[in-house]
């Protein structure tokens, strides 16, 4: 099963189980079923709980927050994560703040889903990974889809917070197979522990290096790990958190202490990155065990060009990660 179908199935399950769940988004109803088909079949099955909206990202996130404030649960799909910029005020100044600024906990169960990432040739305004712009808003949690995490479990976890969450979903990841039963491929295995996926080569040898990356990077990280193992005899473990922010590092600290090299990879542009935030959390805890500073891999400080040969130059490739580990 592909990740897109898996997420679609998770949404079906969620709506079937809870009549208070409403989904809003542009072009999400059947027969179109959303730009990436993630909401396919939902409107046919759940009727007016699934609404195709005007092109009003700020407005629909506000409506979702209103539904959530009044007692419903709302999921808002932003067609391209880039357009979440138009909903920034509702997320920063209303939804996240309102959970605390009235002096008590106000439940606002709202999930904003954002397809992200390049490698599809959509160009500068349809290819970004805007995760870093949403880091550090009190009351807002950030999640990212991965091939390892169960989408329904992630969505359930987000609603359980009773506070707004953004779920980032890599567009190429949609087309990848989900990994189940601890098996990734012929070489790699995985396990879920404390919200993290730990991906390791069969045999589970102590790693030389730990790579930390959001789910959208998983394919490239694994490709890098395969080459590092086979060509360079360097054993890597990949750690993928389901929740990017706030990041809970305690469950993986022991593993991180066992490796001298830690590398954090992400798709956003350079500067003020998620990786810098991860390094900030990890450096004090790993100071004595690291062989050097945590290595940070991100997209270039650049717009994302449309032509594939130019896009490749600025977006993180497997080779970018491989080189960072070897450096």
């Amino acid at each position: 099963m592909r990740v897109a179908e898996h997420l679609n199935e998770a949404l079906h399950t969620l709506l079937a189980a809870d009549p208070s769940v409403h989904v809003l988004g542009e072009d999400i109803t059947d027969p179109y079923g959303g730009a990436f088909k993630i909401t396919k079949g939902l409107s046919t099955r759940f009727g007016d709980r699934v609404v195709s909206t005007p092109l009003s990202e700020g407005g629909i996130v506000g409506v979702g927050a209103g539904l959530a404030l009044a007692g419903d649960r709302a999921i808002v799909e932003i067609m391209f994560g880039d357009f979440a910029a138009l909903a920034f005020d509702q997320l920063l100044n209303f939804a996240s703040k309102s959970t605390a600024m009235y002096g008590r906990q106000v439940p606002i169960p709202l999930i904003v889903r954002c397809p992200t990432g390049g490698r599809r040739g959509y160009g500068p305004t349809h290819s970004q990974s805007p995760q870093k712009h949403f880091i550090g808003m009190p009351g807002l949690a950030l999640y990212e889809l991965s091939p390892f995490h169960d989408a329904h479990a992630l969505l359930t976890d987000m609603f359980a917070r009773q506070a707004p969450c953004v779920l980032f979903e890599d567009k190429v990841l949609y087309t990848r197979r989900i990994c189940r039963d601890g098996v990734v491929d012929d070489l790699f295995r995985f396990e879920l522990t404390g919200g993290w996926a730990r991906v390791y080569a069969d045999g589970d040898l102590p790693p030389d290096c730990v790579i930390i990356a959001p789910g959208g990077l998983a394919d490239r990280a694994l490709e890098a790990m395969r080459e590092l193992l086979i060509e360079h005899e360097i054993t890597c473990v990949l750690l993928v958190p389901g929740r990017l922010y706030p990041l809970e590092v305690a469950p993986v600290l022991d593993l991180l202490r066992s490796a001298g090299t830690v590398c954090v990879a992400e798709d956003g542009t350079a500067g003020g990155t998620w990786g810098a935030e991860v390094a900030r959390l990890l450096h004090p805890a790993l100071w004595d065990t690291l062989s050097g500073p945590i290595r940070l891999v991100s997209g270039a400080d650049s717009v994302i060009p449309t032509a594939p040969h130019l896009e490749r130059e600025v977006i993180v490739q497997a080779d970018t990660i491989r080189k960072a580990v070897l450096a």
Partner: protein
Amino acid sequence: MIGATEERVRDLTPVADADLERMLRIRYFERALLRLFERGQLNGTTHTCLGQEHVPVAVTGLLDPEDFVFSNHRGHGHFLARYDEPHALLAEIMGREGALCNGVGGSQHIFHERFLSTGVQGESLPVAVGVALRLKRTAPGRLACAYIGDGTWGEGSVYEALNMAQLWRAPLLVVVEHNRIAQSTPTTVQMAGTVAGRAAAFGVLHHRVDAVDVNVIRAELAPLLARARSESRPVVAEIAVHRLGPHSKGDDTRTSEELREAAEHDWHPRYAAAFPEQFARLEEEQRAFVERVVDDVMIRPLSAWERP
């Protein structure tokens, strides 16, 4: 002169004690805040609704306890018209025990029962649409009411919200307190066209009231609210008012002529002249009452907040 609206002159209709009392309470509450600021006893900022007190008093008379009210930066009147809890509001503004939101929200961020104010212009309207849609489903006949100003119409969220509300038939009452000035900028300089024209563009019902008479405002708005409730649709109620005081405090750049014009349209002297005995009695009551509220809240210990 700001704007071109000339209020129709007419005699005031007899006013209920409860209405006049509430208008006067809001007036004295706001005056008390400015006085406390002058003495350095208030922190931060505040936006008083001097000259606009009659609007929330009129509107609140048409609201149901189950209706959800969204308020804005100039929201003390909206709150005081709906809730008999001036102590709690002042405690919130002063960060004292018994505050509505433990002193975290302050003047412009209040959430109490079915009343929520927030400080970014236009932001509440899409949220109000969401709440209205929920009410339509779970409590038919109830509505979401959002107070905004003429300046708010510069925000795109207003149009996104009106569009969705009309498309999806959300029972939404938008109350526009058109005070002809956005902070320091005359509305003639910041708004092309009219509120009526903008509402019409979405097919949203609109009614403008040009009166200070609380009964007249209520009577003119009652059919509009009835349609919002029974037909489940958004409506815009525009009420022409004059902001008597500064935007916040001591930041009024209007000319003395403009200020005189605003004062001429104030409900306060008109009600005083029309109903001298009733007015004098209630004014004295409320003046003394608000003074006691201030004295009571001033000596309270500081509010406590457990940070999440």
